[in-house]
């Protein structure tokens, strides 16, 4: 039995001496190659998907922006005509301005409230988990759902907001058709959806600040407010910068809120009073069928975002030094 089993199978027989060592070193070399190439293989899916559906389209956007490109037809080179069209177009400046104002109206209160909430959530609380989950519920809601509900809440004839204002003697406001009122209503939607999320981000930042710092400040006689100003805020600096950058980018992308607040119209209100850049691009591309112009809007928006982010980091570096 044993003899039979031990007997080598003729085909697999290796020559004595060199055979095993060659096989071993070949295997180990393969092993080493596998080990060395593995990390690249592991990160490859991300970079492939990004190259195909992120980077390439982004560059292609720049290329398309130099063409007349109508929905359903082919591209014709027109140089910088789209840019001339864009920079002499009042609707573009309107959209740019509305993006900025709605961006400020939604981002500034959002981050300030979030900071306050995080401070409160950082106390020892009963029902902590419940409160945190409640804070984050709006974040789980889609833009579409949130906007449809708030369109009702801000209704002119029967909206709750007008009802409540009526209780204190304010006449009904036509939120949707006003200029600033529509922008405020849209900002409220954004604030509702994102404040809790940012509060949790701040809370995480606050919890990573060493308690020694607070104790030292307390020993120096700093009261709570002084501790907040001189320990919490400096400790949160990187987090705050991060949320400002993220919210700024988000604000530059507002699309679903103004679209559905206007009942699915891409014009952003009768006089474009809440037409953001995202909505303007959508209108050019998919309502007017001018994909070349839409690409121009997208590319200019992208450059603006890069400029803003650079400005942001530059400013924060300047303040640091």
């Amino acid at each position, binding site marked *: 039995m044993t003899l039979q089993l031990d007997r080598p199978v003729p085909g697999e027989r290796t020559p004595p001496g060199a055979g095993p060592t060659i096989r071993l070193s070949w295997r180990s070399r393969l092993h080493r190659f596998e*080990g060395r190439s*593995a990390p690249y293989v*592991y*990160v490859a*899916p*991300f*970079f492939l*998907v*990004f190259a*195909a559906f*992120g980077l390439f*389209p982004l560059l292609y*956007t720049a290329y*398309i922006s130099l063409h007349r490109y109508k929905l359903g037809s082919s591209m014709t080179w027109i140089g910088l005509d789209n840019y001339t069209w864009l920079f002499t177009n009042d609707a573009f400046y309107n959209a740019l301005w509305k993006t900025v104002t709605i961006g400020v109206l939604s981002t500034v209160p959002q981050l300030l409230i979030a900071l306050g909430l995080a401070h*409160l*959530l*950082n*106390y020892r*609380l009963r029902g902590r988990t*419940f409160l945190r*989950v409640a*804070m*984050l*519920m*709006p974040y*789980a*809601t*889609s*833009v579409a759902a949130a906007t*449809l*509900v708030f369109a009702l809440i801000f209704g002119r004839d*029967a909206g*709750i907001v007008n*009802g409540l204002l*009526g209780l204190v003697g304010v006449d009904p406001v036509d939120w949707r058709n006003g200029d600033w009122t529509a922008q405020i209503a849209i900002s409220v939607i954004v604030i*509702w959806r994102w404040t809790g999320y940012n509060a*949790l*981000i701040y*809370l*995480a*930042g606050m*919890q*990573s600040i060493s*308690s020694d710092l607070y*104790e030292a400040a307390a020993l120096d006689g700093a009261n*709570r407010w002084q*501790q907040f100003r001189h320990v919490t805020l400096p400790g949160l600096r990187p987090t705050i910068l991060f949320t400002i950058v993220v919210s700024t*980018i988000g604000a530059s992308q507002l*699309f*679903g809120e103004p*679209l559905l607040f206007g*009942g*699915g*119209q891409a014009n952003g209100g009768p006089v474009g009073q809440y037409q953001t850049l*995202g909505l303007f691009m959508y209108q050019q*591309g*998919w309502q007017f069928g001018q*994909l070349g112009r*839409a690409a121009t809007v997208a*590319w200019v928006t992208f450059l603006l975002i890069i400029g803003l982010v650079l400005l942001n980091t530059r400013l924060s570096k300047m303040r640091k030094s």
Partner: protein
Amino acid sequence: MTASVAVFPRSRSRPQDRAGVPTYVVLGLVAVAFVAPFYYMLVAASRPMAEMNTFPPPLLPGPDLWKNVATAVRSQNIGLALGNSLVVSGIITISTALFCTLAGYAFAKMRFRGRDTLFAITLGTMMIPPSLSVVPLYTIMADLGLAGSLSSVVLPSLVAAFGVFFMRQYLSQSLPDELLEAARMDGATSLRTFWSVVLPIARPGMAVLGMLTFMTAWNDFFWPVITLNSTNPTVQVALNNLGSGYVPDTAVIMAGTLVGTLPVLVVFVLLGRQIVGGIIAGAVKG
């Protein structure tokens, strides 16, 4: 003093002081403001439109919920939309969790040339809003014959920079180097190590990333609205069509919104704690 430090070694945050009544009042009011719109959605979805046009609005849900849901489902293909959203979000979630763990593991625990540059690039891509690429994406998908198909929604979202970052954070904290060393001593190949050592440890992090990804995918709006049409919509596309209708019956719109939001809300109420923990964990080193 020393005793209390010993008893609470993990008390890292300051305002250790208990919250006072005003704190509870403020947080309670904010919580109500955050949750109230959902309740309003339910009330408005369950009553005839005329009843919502009064002030103060009715406080309790009415009897028309099923009727309104049925109307909404009939008018906008919401049944199909729910199925489509489930398929799209499911595929995106699985693929994101897997690929992001692979990349996150490489960035966290492996040494290779160009690692830091590649990781910096990964972080940088988070700054690029995907909606800026919709024009060429639209063209590319048309060229691939995928315009209007679910694949056109899935493909660009198969993996996400945030997930790579998240899993790198997670694995660099929870995966001990000794374990990888031991696997190497045993002669395990890299893939084998990944499969039997890294994956089991990564699982809790992948679960959190999966929930976040599912929510994001379910709620994705801009690109699906552009690429899909009303015959084969996802939930968000169906809601967009519902809200853009020419006969705005708010009760039906709210019923559709409720149906489209419910799946995510259920996930969220059941697993909200873990999601909150995941967001906080992902933010700390951000």
